[in-house]
């Protein structure tokens, strides 16, 4: 196991380097002079020079890249051009909102998705199966941000069961925290719920056809026990492997969902930066999300290897 952990950790290093290089390289894509993006066309030559200096654009490329790596390694993602404060600081301040939203959505997606998938597999070919599969397909196809707007309209404005947005910190009131995040988290979870329901169903159908399930039934174990203990435990294996990817998709979706529900998270920070072309914040936000994704996937892989020894030997 120790060797596997080491190998897996080492494999992450080049990807991390490439990820930060890609974030850095985003500035190359800017047509023309990146400095001119932050100023309007009437800007004086001195103003342009000043911004270039602030962004380090007056230095040679390799020096800039070296500077960037050096700063990032120290946890310094630069200074926001607009907020006039450190990017790292701004990100850390908003991180709890995004992580809360993603975590609740993850729980929704797994609980509801797995339950629906199991139901569909157990009732294979019947009305419940078809109903679940139709809902799963709808979940996969729905534009999240639009669904969020519709939920706000119906459940927050018309019947006022839920707040239309805003965030209450967990430390302040766990109940209000959950209540405020319920609608956005459900919106965000929809797509992944659909995926998980479909995966669980097919995985369950395969497992329930195995010999050991027949044996379990033959020796007279109660059906729920067979389905859950022998069926679901084994059917979950392929689902666990995609959980890391799921977290990535949820983080991406959270950016958009935060916008719809006006939650003050990382997503709103990034989109605000995108709209005002605040480059250090865009780069810092992207890098941060990518690192979270890589760490989560690393953890999932290690967990998987701990659960299934065959993986370590590959």
């Amino acid at each position, binding site marked *: 196991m120790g060797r596997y952990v080491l190998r897996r950790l080492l494999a992450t290093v080049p990807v991390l380097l490439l990820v930060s290089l890609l974030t850095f390289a985003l500035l190359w894509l800017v047509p023309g002079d990146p400095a001119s993006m932050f100023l309007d066309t009437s800007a004086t030559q001195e103003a342009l020079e000043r911004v270039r200096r602030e962004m380090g654009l007056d230095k040679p490329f390799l020096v800039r890249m070296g500077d960037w790596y050096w700063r990032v390694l120290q946890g310094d993602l630069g200074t926001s051009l607009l907020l006039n404060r450190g990017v790292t600081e701004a990100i850390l301040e908003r991180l709890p909102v995004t992580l809360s939203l993603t975590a609740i959505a993850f729980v929704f997606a797994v609980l509801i998705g797995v339950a629906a998938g199991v139901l569909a597999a157990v009732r294979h070919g019947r009305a419940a199966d078809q109903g679940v599969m139709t809902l799963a397909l709808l979940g996969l196809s729905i534009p999240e941000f*639009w669904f969020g*707007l519709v939920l706000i*309209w119906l459940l927050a404005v018309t019947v006022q069961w839920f707040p239309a947005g805003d965030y209450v910190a967990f430390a302040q009131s766990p109940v209000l925290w959950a209540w405020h995040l319920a609608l956005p988290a459900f919106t965000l979870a929809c797509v992944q719920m659909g995926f998980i329901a479909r995966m669980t169903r097919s995985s369950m159908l395969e497992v329930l056809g195995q010999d050991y399930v027949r044996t379990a039934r033959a020796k007279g174990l109660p059906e729920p026990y067979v389905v859950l203990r022998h069926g679901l435990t084994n059917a979950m294996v392929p689902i666990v492997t995609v959980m890391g990817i799921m977290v990535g998709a949820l983080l991406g979706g959270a950016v958009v969902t935060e916008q719809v529900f006006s939650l003050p998270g990382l997503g709103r920070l990034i989109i605000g930066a*995108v709209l005002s072309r605040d480059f250090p914040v865009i780069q810092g936000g992207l890098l941060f999300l*990518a690192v979270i994704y890589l760490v989560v996937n690393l953890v999932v892989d290690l967990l998987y290897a701990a659960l299934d020894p065959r993986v370590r030997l590959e």
Partner: protein
Amino acid sequence: MDAVMNAPAAPARRDTVARRLLRNRSFVIGAVLIGLIALAALLAGVIAPYDPLKGNFRARMVAPSATYWFGTDHFGRDILSRILHGARISLQIGIAVALVTGLLGVVIGAASGYFRRLDGPIMRLMDAFMAFPGIILAIAISSVLGASVTNVIIALSIAATPHTARIVRASVIVVREMEYVEAARAIGASHARILLRHILANSMAPLVVRMTYVFAVAILNEAVLSYIGVGPPPPTPTFGAIIANGRDFIVAAPWITVAPGLTVLVSVLGLNLLGDGLRDVLDPRMRVNAR
């Protein structure tokens, strides 16, 4: 030589694939849905009852009626006409993204799967791209490049390519070990010939399925980009832009938001059904994973 050998078998095989597709319920429903939307989009110029950009100030925020089937927005623009023209842009972007992604995916995936020395570096680069949530990568690229239809296509294609390349690579690696590839190499066929004629020709099924899903995701993500404000510039009628316009009036005039959202839902649903059907028929091995 193989042209002669394949000739008698080919028509019969194509026939059964077509027939199997027509017997597949998902494929047929999906094809009908997306076919209807494509037809409406193609004929937008003819069938749209009003100008999608010109508002009638005497008919602002009119509820759906016989005159305005889907109602009007706060500028008095007809929602149905805007959706029809929006569908045109959305489908164009979706098709372009699917094609560009397919092409890039084949080039990158084939290079990676066939030439072992390239495999490591290329796949690490793809891993790095995949570490960024696709939609955020697209938002960032689109905003950096500037708002236009072309830039949206570029941004969405960059976001969708790494996964596509991985899928192509996976099937190339399987096909690469087949005996007929070895045979082709033994008779002295060039790399190009082996890749195009033997390997790629036999790894197309997963790619076709993937391109259908890329098309669907491109429509969803284009709507997100336009909604956020980094899509094609206004007053271009795109689904996301129409929804964004309706956002502030969702209580007073919900039709502005509901109708374009449902159109996106139906389009994406159609493409997903089409993709499911294609997967069941062309690539039964993948069934286990996704169904």
